[in-house]
């Protein structure tokens, strides 16, 4: 229908413009030896139609593998089998193999130059956030100028067979403070134990909200107040914390059940104490800017069996304080 209507209009027009054209060609693009307007339009129309038919109405999508029909049947039998039927425990923690406690320490350095930190766009509550002309900068790559130390690298134990019971003073310790001031989270990367009370505080004279991604924690924190938060689950890799009122505010938190987690200090140093001795421990390393999967920091370090997934292994003797030395992070290990 569209075709007919279009052609009629077009034909009438041609008839008026060139009333007695002597030649007539069935080839649209060679009418009277020149480019015919009508033929050109027609050809364009055909081209559009053919192209759209070829492309179709679906978005082009990456192809994905389908389910393996044979395995589906086999798996379904496994899945519907009555539970507790003496299935071998797969991922149970291995039986403890050692006694005593030990510690690790080390220091991360950055091989390259961090360049100038990007200034953040602060366009709300400027009377507080840029008070006295202070400027806020992107803190994703903090390198100590003199020692080259790389700050805010997270190291945590993946699995341990034993966890040292908390001492009386550790149990009694008051909450850790996760504070924000001048529209900035004071800890760019914050670690805590699951169940340990965290005082999410606001030291600014204006209100904030603290939104921990993946946790459903998103609370209003009125000016000068705080709210107590007890992390109820492990985060896996560190998860982002933002303030929706001031979108430039960003930090990361990591919660671990066993508390075997450290964040490297301004000079790049870190240490984890009270680790179980006598077993092979695997540690996970993370940095915000890491180019590895999920922020995993992969280093070239055969001695520690460092993998591209950012994991290394150590075995500790009782009461040992193992110094991993200086761990240099090459430029290409970090992305943008």
């Amino acid at each position, binding site marked *: 229908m569209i*075709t007919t209507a279009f*052609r009629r209009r077009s*034909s*009438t027009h041609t*008839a008026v413009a060139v009333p007695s*054209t002597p030649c*007539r060609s*069935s*080839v*649209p693009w060679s009418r009277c030896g020149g480019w015919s307007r009508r*033929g050109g339009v027609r050809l364009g129309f*055909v081209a559009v*139609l*053919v192209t759209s*038919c070829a492309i179709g*109405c679906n*978005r*082009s*999508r*990456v192809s994905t*593998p*389908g*389910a*393996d029909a044979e*395995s*589906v*049947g086999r*798996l*379904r039998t*496994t*899945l*519907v*089998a009555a*539970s507790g039927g003496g*299935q*071998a425990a*797969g*991922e149970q923690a291995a039986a403890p193999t050692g006694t005593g406690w030990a510690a690790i320490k080390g220091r991360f350095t950055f091989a390259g130059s961090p360049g100038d930190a990007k200034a953040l766009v602060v366009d709300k509550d400027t009377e507080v956030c840029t008070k006295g002309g202070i400027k806020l900068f992107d803190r994703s790559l903090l390198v100590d100028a003199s020692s080259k130390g790389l700050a805010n690298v997270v190291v945590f134990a993946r699995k341990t067979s034993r966890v040292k019971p908390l001492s009386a003073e550790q149990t009694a310790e008051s909450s850790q403070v996760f504070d924000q001031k001048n529209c900035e989270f004071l800890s760019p990367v914050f670690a805590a134990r699951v169940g340990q009370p965290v005082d999410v505080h606001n030291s600014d*004279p*204006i*209100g904030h*909200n603290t939104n921990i991604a993946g*946790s*459903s924690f*998103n*609370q*209003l*924190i*009125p000016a000068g107040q705080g*709210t107590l938060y007890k992390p109820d689950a492990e985060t*896996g890799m560190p998860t982002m914390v933002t303030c*929706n009122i*001031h*979108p430039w505010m960003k930090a990361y938190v990591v919660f671990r059940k066993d508390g075997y987690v450290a964040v490297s200090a301004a000079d790049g140093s870190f240490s984890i104490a009270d680790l179980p001795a006598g077993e092979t421990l695997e540690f996970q390393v993370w940095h915000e800017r890491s*180019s590895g*999967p999920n922020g995993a920091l992969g280093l070239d370090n055969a001695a520690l069996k460092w*993998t591209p*997934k950012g*994991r290394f292994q150590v075995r500790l003797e009782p009461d040992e304080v193992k110094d991993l030395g200086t761990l240099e992070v090459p430029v290409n290990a970090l*992305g943008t």
Partner: protein
Amino acid sequence: MPWGREHNPFVAQAGFMKTLCQLRFSSFRFRGGRSAPACVPSGAAWLLLAVAALSAAGCGRTPAAAYRLNMVEAAKQRLTTEQQRQVATVLEAMFGTPDEPIALAETGLDEAKLRLASGPVRSDIVGRKNGLYREHCVHCHGISGDGLGPTAAFLNPYPRDYRPGVFKFKSTERADKPTHADLLRILRQGIPGTSMPSFALLSEPQIDALAEYVKYLSIRGETELALMRAFFELDDDAKGKLPETREFLVDETLTPVAEKWKAAAAARIPVPDMPADIDLTASIAKGRELFYGDKANCVKCHGVTGLGDGQANDYDDWNKTIVEWKKEVAGEKDATAASLGRAVLAGDALKPRTIPPRNLRQGIYRGGRRPLDLYYRIHAGINGAPMPAAKGTISPEDIWHIVNYVRSLPYEFDGELGADRPMVARDRF
């Protein structure tokens, strides 16, 4: 065509070519009544031939409906084809296909309801309508519940992606799942201000079946995310393959997701009644004070005018996932991974949109306009959206004051009514 037939020398030709020639001939009539041309394929004929050929060839046989993997997460986790296949296989074993869904006992889902909602649109032996999801929901929410149906890109806001298991409008705390009644309510009422219509004309069992199917898709999607993320957590000696034991797949992966849905019914927010003797004028004034104050801070996002023109360049969780992934793809150094990332962004994600804070002058409330609904929104915040929770910070009584003030906003007025000063605030701004 009333004319031309007697002039056509090919009138005796049968079928398709005859029609073609007639069409072609008719178009040439306008050139000044020349005698009938020979029936060689002209531009028009070529066009018709092309259309006919393409229509006949079609775009292939329609394949059976299949779930699509969450490709954004798969690309993010850098899963190999083999790993993607394992996820697809486990999911099919656990949840079946769009035509034949199954529900393990651990999910707590009713398979009879799922069968009513799933599959192609058809009537069963007693004349009952089946395939309700594909009749009413799939064009927006997609066959996998990924919010990527064919119409999705044209809607604002985008249809909900059920796979992360995050729902906005519910009577439970922020971290909890909605109750079954919450889903029924959304289906019956629709979501004002969005493209989600009311399905109140469906029968109770039909709405019930659809709510069950939404839960099914959500549990399936969340399990899929958990499986994809589990690859990273594997030990190196697992050789990049997930353990196919009941313990890992059901007890550690499926059950934690399903348990949250089961717990929802008992997790409703306790709401104290609004004080019966409340002085509405005083309450609104108190609510106004809180709205603009530093404690509740509503003004920061909803704006000094209440028009939702405060902090407005933020994203909700669904869009933020894409924004973050986009950044990652832009910074990707590996060319293959970068091109895969771009392809996934083009085919499996919608263009990210910011989420504007609600304009409170319009009297349109997505989660419902009952005072109770507003209480829930303020108490628990809106999961997945920037709206934070006020619970713990603002007392229940104060929340009621804010509710009263917010409800007065579309009609807030001081002074004389007039032609240039209508009662309804929406007309003033």
